[in-house]
């Protein structure tokens, strides 16, 4: 590893305990989770106090970190309950809280020893605002999604503070915090975690005389996703402290795949920067996983015509994820697999996991739970055995090879 380069933290979303464990096992250095209060993903499953306790213990046993989002815009009623909640998080020894409302910074500094990270909801884009928050006791800034390469370099140069930057996932079409379409159109409060994603709806675009301007498709606000895979070396060289993956509502497969790919890219670059080469195969896996196109957003230039979706897009649910390994018998070379999507004898598949590089093979034999030979695995959560001659481990995942 190049000693001049700082190893960034890979920070993954964890919507529940299963995803937390998967994210950490697959290579995340830290996870961020929502408690059952004050979190902007109000409709994720989120963590109760007891679950948080278990999550902290699991994470710390691996010598990794866990951050809790406390990032809604408080209304009067919610604000009344916040001190007790912060004290509770402090007792649980979470590693930091992620906040957007500055009042919470003040409370955390005064009443707890919790480090405070400033949420992207504040859309922080400049060193003056960052200096203000640093003086208030914030130890890390989650930069606005509109930040460019030049913005990061300048801020790093001017202020000594940790910077967290989104590297992958879905993006708001607006400046974060500056959209209440959801409130007005569906009565759901976007800044308190109820966003109903109006930006994915389609609208007619009219001119100033209310005449329809009709393209081949209707108008939407919908932006393509973010992927910074191509820019991992740039971000490491810029000294970004934490690489954040978006998506607390995403599946375990999504979390495992995205974490796994970025873990590899980061480690490969750090181990030998001068001989690092971009792996197109990784890009393909990321694209297939989300079923959405991705771009570097504002990191490297303007946001042009090809950065958006223009409706009419069919969003097919991901069927790449075939199953999860439950067990492996080293004598019989049989892996026990729990099914997630249809697969059959002859399929070319790939198994990947936290402790193996991926294994590619054609499925030759499939046995059901009573050891009968079968050809097709069609039932959700069906338990089967397949022969694999290389060792695999519990929690490894099997996907179709494309």
């Amino acid at each position, binding site marked *: 590893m190049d000693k001049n380069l700082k190893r960034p933290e890979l920070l993954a979303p964890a919507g529940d305990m299963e995803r937390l464990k998967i994210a950490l096992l697959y290579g995340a250095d830290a996870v961020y989770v929502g408690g059952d209060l004050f979190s902007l993903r*109000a*409709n994720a*499953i*989120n963590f109760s106090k007891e679950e948080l306790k278990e999550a902290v213990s699991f994470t710390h046993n691996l010598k990794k970190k866990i951050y809790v989002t406390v990032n*809604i*815009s*408080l209304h*009067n009623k919610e*604000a009344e309950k916040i001190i007790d909640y912060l004290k509770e998080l402090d007792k649980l020894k979470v590693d930091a809280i992620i906040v*957007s*409302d*500055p*009042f919470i910074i003040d409370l955390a500094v005064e009443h707890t020893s919790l480090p405070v990270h400033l949420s992207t909801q*504040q*859309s922080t*884009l*400049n*060193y*003056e*605002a960052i*200096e*203000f*928050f640093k003086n*208030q006791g914030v130890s890390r800034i989650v930069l*606005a999604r509109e930040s460019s390469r030049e*913005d990061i370099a300048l801020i790093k140069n001017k202020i000594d503070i940790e910077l967290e930057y989104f590297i992958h996932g879905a993006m708001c*079409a*607006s*400046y974060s*915090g*500056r*959209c*209440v*379409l959801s*409130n*007005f159109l569906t*009565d*759901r*409060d976007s*800044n*308190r*975690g*109820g966003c109903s994603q109006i930006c994915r709806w389609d*609208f*007619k*675009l*009219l*001119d*100033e*005389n209310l005449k329809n*301007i009709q*393209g081949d*498709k209707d*108008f939407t*606000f919908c*932006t393509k996703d973010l992927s910074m895979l191509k820019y991992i070396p740039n971000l490491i060289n810029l000294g970004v402290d934490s690489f954040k993956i978006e998506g607390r509502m995403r599946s375990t497969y999504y979390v495992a795949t995205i974490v796994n790919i970025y873990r590899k890219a980061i480690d490969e670059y750090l181990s030998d920067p001068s001989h690092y080469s971009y792996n197109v195969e990784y890009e393909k896996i990321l694209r297939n996983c989300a079923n959405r196109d991705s771009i570097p957003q504002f990191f490297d230039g303007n*946001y*042009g*015509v090809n950065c958006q979706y*223009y409706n009419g897009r069919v969003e097919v649910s991901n069927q790449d994820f075939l199953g999860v390994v439950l067990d492996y018998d080293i004598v019989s070379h049989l892996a026990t697999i729990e099914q997630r999507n249809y697969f059959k004898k002859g399929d070319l598949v790939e198994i990947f996991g936290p402790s193996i590089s991926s294994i590619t093979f054609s499925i030759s034999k499939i046995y059901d739970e009573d050891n009968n030979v079968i050809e097709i695995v069609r039932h959700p959560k069906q338990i089967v055995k397949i022969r694999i001659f290389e060792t695999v481990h519990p929690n490894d995942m099997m996907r179709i090879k494309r």
Partner: protein
Amino acid sequence: MSKFIVIPSSKEQILNLLDLCDGFILGLNNFSVNLPITFSLEEIKDIIKLCKSLQKQIFISLNKNMHNADIDELTSNLVELSKLDLDGLIFYDIAIVNLNKKLNLNLKLFWHQEHLVTNYYTINYWCKNGVYGSFLSSELTKKEILDIKDNTNCPLMMNVFGFIPMFTSKRPLVKNYLSKFNLQDNSKINYLEKENNIYPITSTNVVTVYSNNILNLAQEINELSEKNIAYFVFNSFNIESSLFKSIMLLFYKLTNENQKEIFDKINMLLNYKSDTGFLYKNTVYKVKKNG
């Protein structure tokens, strides 16, 4: 007595409304968003001169999200503005709080992070940190507004009339759409239509989408005024100038004439395309139980 503050759409409109309001919110070119018009610093100086001679108040709204590249010019603008007779400077980006403090500019800052000004604890936090007043989010209920007023000494501003910005983006969404499908359109303002609702959308230095209905708190104004909300804001965006003047005149009369008749007149003038926003409407954010 609450003051009536207008967001104007032109210089002419300022002249026309001098008798019907207590002041104006002005935008500065390149530093203000979600306003129907912005002005140069020189123009602002002229407007201040005129307004101050008539005891009208002037607020400047520097409410864009500031990038690093904006900071030098922002700093010199703040220094210039601090020399003028302003009644307040409305801000979104926290860089302004930092600069005001570091440079001892003593600008009377009004916190207006549009949709984030939602509780009195945070309002009081800002007052403790160099901010003078707060401009409330439009997504609050009347009860929340009154609770805030009861628990802060910070002067409050709130929208009472006009189209309300709902969405602000750096992404040139309309331009990209036109370009994608090779369409020509030079409209100064566009609209989005969904299920017979029409939302204004503008593309200047940012893209802004506004509410379909006009917020109209005519029936609430006297009660809110009794609670000493300091400033009522009237936004002229996308409202024909003579209509806006008629509305202002009716609001002006609200305190001393037959109120029912005035409410009816306002509703008629607005063709009944108005509502009371979130005043009586609670938003939800948790739509299912855990697990």
